[in-house]
């Protein structure tokens, strides 16, 4: 008898679980990969239509397989032989490749795994949406939005990232305006703009940078205002010599203040040895999850409250090319970064006045621009406002029927920090009473509360491989 495993979500996480199952299954297996978008493998991240949206990690570090680090590089270089250069000077190990191309790579990885798979291991791609899952003693029934039911043995929730929430203001009526874009990846986010329109981007992270360079690519000449609480922008990558690990997981402090102090000290030491701070942070990457897990809840909360913003801009860096484009926009005055909060909106027929309450402390970002502290209040008049605040990860806030359904039945629960779902070490979900499911599993962003570092390819590829083995019963 054949086993059936359903994977809900065909972005990077779900597609990689499918690929590993195809490669590793030794018994009759039906894999059902359910994706509502027209294309498998692209997800939100790699489905962009803009060629200026680059991977934020160089090609040599983007392999889909942890045990074959050059896999992506080889694939992309082979593509170039058949199709010509994908980027002007050809892809090198340190090239930041357009994200569209990575979407195609993921599709190719799945296609290859499917062709190479055993005859009794079958993959079915289902273009539909799962709207409920009802687990029972020996499997689960999945309902699709067109009404069909699927009977399966195990389910992987590969849900990826959710859209951002609207920033809090007293009067929310502006959020129904056509001038407001609540979802930055909307196909219409930048359409119907006049060339000289002023735009406000809320948030100053990687998503904001994507929107800014896309505006540039379409020849936008109007002002681009950016507002975020701290006004900090992600730092650019720089190739540096590696720095040796300086922290031992066992002896590392279990509180945030001491950890930050240690890292700061080490950065000073590194700079004295002509090393870059980036290398110091990168040396933490292999142990970040362990460091996170041994912090008490109170300290994890402290990290989220006080350190997260600084961690994000140093750790999740942007390609030097994008950073240059944005630096030019800052220097020319086209882009203005405000540190503060939005207080309210006042819309008329032609534009919207957005009032900002500015932050008192000022920072210098990498372009040497100061943000904040000129005046306490400011009003910016713009034709469009785009929410780039980043993914919402509090599962209690999602109106998606599948999440609603799983939560109302108590099959899932948020982690203690409400930044993901409660998950066992093997990826199995915990129900409302803390029981570990034998049926429901997850990977990627929903594991954030448990692992902290779990949203990028290097982490997710490892999880996908391990989860496939777990599902196939290959773990002892």
């Amino acid at each position, binding site marked *: 008898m054949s086993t059936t495993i359903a994977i809900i979500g065909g972005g990077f996480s779900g597609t990689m679980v499918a690929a590993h199952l195809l490669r590793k299954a030794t018994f009759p297996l039906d894999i059902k990969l359910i994706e*509502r*978008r027209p294309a498998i493998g692209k997800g*939100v991240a790699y489905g962009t239509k803009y060629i200026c949206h680059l991977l934020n990690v160089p090609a040599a570090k983007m392999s889909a397989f942890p045990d074959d680090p050059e896999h992506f590089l080889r694939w992309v270089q082979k593509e170039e032989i058949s199709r010509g250069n994908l980027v002007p000077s050809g892809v090198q190990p340190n090239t930041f490749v357009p994200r569209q191309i990575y979407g195609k790579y993921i599709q190719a990885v799945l296609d290859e795994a499917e062709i190479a798979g055993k005859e009794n291991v079958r993959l079915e791609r289902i273009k539909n*949406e799962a*709207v409920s899952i009802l687990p029972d003693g020996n499997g689960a029934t999945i309902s699709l*939005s*067109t*009404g*069909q*039911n699927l009977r399966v043995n195990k389910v992987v929730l590969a849900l990826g990232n*959710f*859209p951002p929430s609207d920033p809090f203001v007293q009067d929310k*009526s502006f959020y*129904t*305006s*056509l001038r407001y874009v*609540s*979802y930055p*990846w*909307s*196909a*219409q986010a930048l*359409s119907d703009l006049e060339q000289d329109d002023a735009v406000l981007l809320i948030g100053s992270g990687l998503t904001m940078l994507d929107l800014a360079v896309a505006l540039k690519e379409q020849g936008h000449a109007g002002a681009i205002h950016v507002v975020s609480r701290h006004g900090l922008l992600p730092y650019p990558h720089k190739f540096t010599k590696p720095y040796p690990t300086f922290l031992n997981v066992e002896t590392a402090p279990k509180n945030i203040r001491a950890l930050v102090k240690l890292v700061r000290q080490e950065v000073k030491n590194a700079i004295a040895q002509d090393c870059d701070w980036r290398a110091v942070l990168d040396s933490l990457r292999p142990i970040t999850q362990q460091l996170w897990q041994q912090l008490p809840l109170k300290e994890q909360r402290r990290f989220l409250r006080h350190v997260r913003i600084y961690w994000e801009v140093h750790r999740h860096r942007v390609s030097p090319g994008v950073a240059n484009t944005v630096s030019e926009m800052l220097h020319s005055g086209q882009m203005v970064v405000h540190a503060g909060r939005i207080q309210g909106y006042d819309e008329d027929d032609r534009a919207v006045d957005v009032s900002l309450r500015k932050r008192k402390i000022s920072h210098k970002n990498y372009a040497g621009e100061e943000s904040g502290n000129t005046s306490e209040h400011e009003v910016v008049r713009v034709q469009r406002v785009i929410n780039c605040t980043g993914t919402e990860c509090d599962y209690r806030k*999602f*109106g*998606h*029927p*599948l999440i*609603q359904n799983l939560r109302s039945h108590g099959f899932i629960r948020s982690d203690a920090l409400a930044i993901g779902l409660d998950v066992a070490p093997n990826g199995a979900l915990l129900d409302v009473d803390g029981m570990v499911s034998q049926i429901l599993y997850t990977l990627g962003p929903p594991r954030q509360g448990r692992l902290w570092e779990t949203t990028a390819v290097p982490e997710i590829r490892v999880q996908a491989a391990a989860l496939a083995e777990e599902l196939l019963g290959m773990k002892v």
Partner: protein
Amino acid sequence: MSVNLLTKRLTLDNFILEMMSIPPQDLQIEQLQDLVGQLDLNDTLLRQHISFSDRTYARKLLCRTSRFDMLVLSWHPGQFTTIHDHAGALNVTRVRSGTLTARLFEVYDERSDREKLVRVIDEEQLGRGGLATVDRHHIHQLANTSDEKLVTLHVYAHPLASINVYCPNSGQVDRVALQYTLEQ
């Protein structure tokens, strides 16, 4: 026709006047599509009817006349309607923001008046301003299969008292009386 051909945006008042000027039995789906396609989507009254609900898509009645109903529907990602027909009413849906998935169904096994098995014969995605039309006896389903919120404007002529809902598994057809959420 009247002055409205000169302006691209049709106000709600003028839409009502236009609709009232056409005898109901003469109204063609193309005419309805034309008029709905001209409506001003940033209309304040329309915006006041946008409201999202976590339980299911939110349906708000904006205006009801003897000739038609106009509704605003607000959808979170993943929310969807039943598979249904409009019991003889014409329907045009316009996307205000987001992306709408419209599926058309056909009966492939009619066992009785109240037992009909249906299957999808067409599916399209409509972006901002896009129009979906449903003729008097078409069976359809609307859904938000995108990652972003969706707001749609719906006009039904004649006003909808009930619809027929098709169960995709059993084939059972149920007549369901409609209830509207009125303004608070």
